[in-house]
């Protein structure tokens, strides 16, 4: 169980939340939205690889025939 990816996602979530707070306090709502979008896309790229690995693992475990 590789826990590093969880830590990376959690850290990125906190960093993006704080930056989003700063940017929206500074009155740059559009840039804050773009920042959130970028964070979501980065995390989605990681998660897609993870889910693909999981489905491959399921296939190898149950491929007995």
């Amino acid at each position, binding site marked *: 169980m590789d*826990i590093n990816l*969880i830590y990376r*996602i959690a850290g990125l979530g906190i960093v*993006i939340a704080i930056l989003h*707070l700063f940017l929206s306090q500074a009155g740059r709502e559009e840039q804050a939205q773009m920042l959130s979008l970028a964070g979501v896309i980065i995390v989605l790229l990681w998660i897609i690889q993870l889910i693909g690995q999981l*489905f491959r693992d399921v296939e190898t475990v149950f491929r*007995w025939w």
Partner: protein
Amino acid sequence: MELVGRVAGVALVIAIWLSLLRGRTPELALALLVAFSALAVGAALGPLQEVVKTFARLDRAAGGNGAYLGVVLRAMAIAYVAAFGAQICRDAGQPSLGMTVELVGKVAILVTAVPVFVALLDALWRLLPAIT
């Protein structure tokens, strides 16, 4: 045992972290949830492989040709994947998507199980003239 302890501990930390993230960036909270679920299920696959190997050995010892065990294992794999996807969709606040995933999983299992049903009917057909 050790696996359960690790997963439970990490799940506790993730639960606290999720309550922190959910107010500010709900989409990243969902991503964290998906990542943890995928990792935990992936970690549970290792012990599951031993069970599958044991079933395969039992099937060989009983003289089976592996066709029926293959059907059972395929149905198990479909059920696991469908339950995982449905639960993720439900956590994301889209229960109808989860229900669709579950429905497709049920249909897939049904299609997988049809050869067993046909084999059962064949066996009955061979048995019936012997009785009458």
